[in-house]
């Protein structure tokens, strides 16, 4: 049992060789992970990378094919019930009851956690205040906005004080404002010492919230480190140039590859160039293109995307299967 929330060396989540097969499909492959108490670890990867499968195994919703996972020292298969009492899950798939109100949902979760009616009511009132649910507390969950729903979702995970809180893609599908609200809530929780395991498709989200990031693709961990560590390897900004057609893409590639290190994505008709010097690099690139007079669709300075991170850290795009389709996909 973990006792201290400040014991940084204590490992709350540990997986060893965690593997999950669905028939012939390997969803998670030999995955090792350690989450220390009081830290935030983010699992970062594209759709279908195996993030949710890992979360489901940690939350005892799915049994590993091989390997093991423990939460607070409890094995997710042999001591599943103990795992459930120390872990709270908020996920894309761990839904609320649509036809109950926000308040009724929270009460049900508190009661199912074992609280008597009086305690449950007080906890729920507290959560409603804390998560600013008051104005829609008596609305059916199916009729509230995505952002409001996510707040109820988070509150539902906190009807107990979990030893570890698992958030599966907490902001997928949310508008930027709601995303900010979720982020600030998560930061509050972290400052209170909650251990957090978070999955996301957004590099900026992992960067904003996590102490430690694990990149995952095709069920395997492909890189790991602190956000700063990873960012220094990815590079900060880049210049993206979208060509008007494939012919001019080739012209531009030939023109720019001498002076810059270019990455070409044919199916997006796009050339990407690292821009560590930001605006200075942008003007250097535009100077070359301007001198030649080639038309472009778009040219812009951008923050790195998840794809860039994978490219930089693993030398491969996040979906290697796309490479083959790149060659074949010629617009008619």
């Amino acid at each position, binding site marked *: 049992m973990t006792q201290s929330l400040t014991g940084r060396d204590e490992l709350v989540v540990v997986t060893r060789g965690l593997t999950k097969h669905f028939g012939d499909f390997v969803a998670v492959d030999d995955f090792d992970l350690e989450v220390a108490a009081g830290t935030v670890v983010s699992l970062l990867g594209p759709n279908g990378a195996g993030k949710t499968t890992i979360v489901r195994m940690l939350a005892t919703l799915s049994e590993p094919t091989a390997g093991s996972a423990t939460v607070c020292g409890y094995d997710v298969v042999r001591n599943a*019930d103990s795992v459930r009492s120390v872990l709270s899950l908020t996920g894309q*798939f761990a*839904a*609320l009851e649509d036809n109950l109100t926000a308040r009724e949902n929270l009460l049900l979760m508190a*009661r199912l956690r*074992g609280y008597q009616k009086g305690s449950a009511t007080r906890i729920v009132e507290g959560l409603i205040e804390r998560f600013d649910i008051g104005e829609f507390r008596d609305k059916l969950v199916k009729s509230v906005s995505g952002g409001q729903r996510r707040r109820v979702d988070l509150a539902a995970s906190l009807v107990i004080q979990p030893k570890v809180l698992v958030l599966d893609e907490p902001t997928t599908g949310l508008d930027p404002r709601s995303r900010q609200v979720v982020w600030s809530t998560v930061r509050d929780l972290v400052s209170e010492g909650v251990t957090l395991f978070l999955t996301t498709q957004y590099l900026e989200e992992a960067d904003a919230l996590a102490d430690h990031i694990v990149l995952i693709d095709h069920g395997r961990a492909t890189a790991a480190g602190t956000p700063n560590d990873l960012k220094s390897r990815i590079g900060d900004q880049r210049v993206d140039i979208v060509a008007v057609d494939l012919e001019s893409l080739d012209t531009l590639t030939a023109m720019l590859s001498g002076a810059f290190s270019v990455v070409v994505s044919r199916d997006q008709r796009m050339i990407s160039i690292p821009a560590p010097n930001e605006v200075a690099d942008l003007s250097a690139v535009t100077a070359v293109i301007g001198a030649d007079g080639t038309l472009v669709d778009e040219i812009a300075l951008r923050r790195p995307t998840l794809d860039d991170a994978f490219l930089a850290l693993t030398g491969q795009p996040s979906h290697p299967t796309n490479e083959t389709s790149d060659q074949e996909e010629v617009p008619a």
Partner: protein
Amino acid sequence: MSSIAISRVDPAANEALPPRPARFQRFVRETTLLVARGLQTIPRVPSRLSDVTIQPIVFTLLFLYVFGSAIHIPHMTYQNYLLPGLIGQSLAFGVIGAGVATATDFGSGVIDRFRSLPVTRLSVITSQVVGQIIEQILGIVIVAGIGLALGWRPHMSPWGLIELVLLVLLGLSAFTWFGVLMGMIVKSSDAMQGIGFAIVFPLSFLAGTFVPISGMKTIPRVIGEWDPLSALVAAIRKVTEGTPAHGSWQLEHPVIAMVVWCALIIAICVPLALRRFKLSN
């Protein structure tokens, strides 16, 4: 230090979690909570509400007045013939109701939320079954009530009434478990609705619900004679009217046949449903 910070902002920190009761007590408590959740949502889903209220009312009125004017059953009013049939049909339609509700819950992810909590797994699936049975009872009470108001006069002793209630509960248990299993397999509520109607609707019409099986042409008659729903309808009619049907062993011994069919369905569906629930990932 951080624990002080938590108790200030975290509502759960100020409340003591009671010691965990014994497993069986927890099972009863959790099942009750989850059944209550299911019943709470009925009035909020128009289609579910109409399935157990408006639909039986419309069926009863339609068949009584449309078919009733053309069908003459010897030695019996059409009310007395039809109502046992409608009760049997309601039982059978419970398969669709339970299947759709289960498919919806599993599809929405709310079941996964419950499974991620430290609640007994059996309570999650039991509550599904118990909730559906209560919902179907509501529908059957409405059908019987309208029937009585419109001239249904069952000929049965108090013991007959007890027998009727027991048979209906047995039938509900069997068909609800079957529906829950189907719902978990099919997973989509729309598909469940479609498949359910495609199977249950014809079987319930062939089951001597509205017209006697003995008067049907050869092929429907043979199907009707061995249709499990025929045993149901005939058993309920035997209890309320004391008149067995004829044509096959199960129609001549309908009560035993119904008990055997239900026992068989329960013996097959319950273990399969539990296994599927445990493995669902």
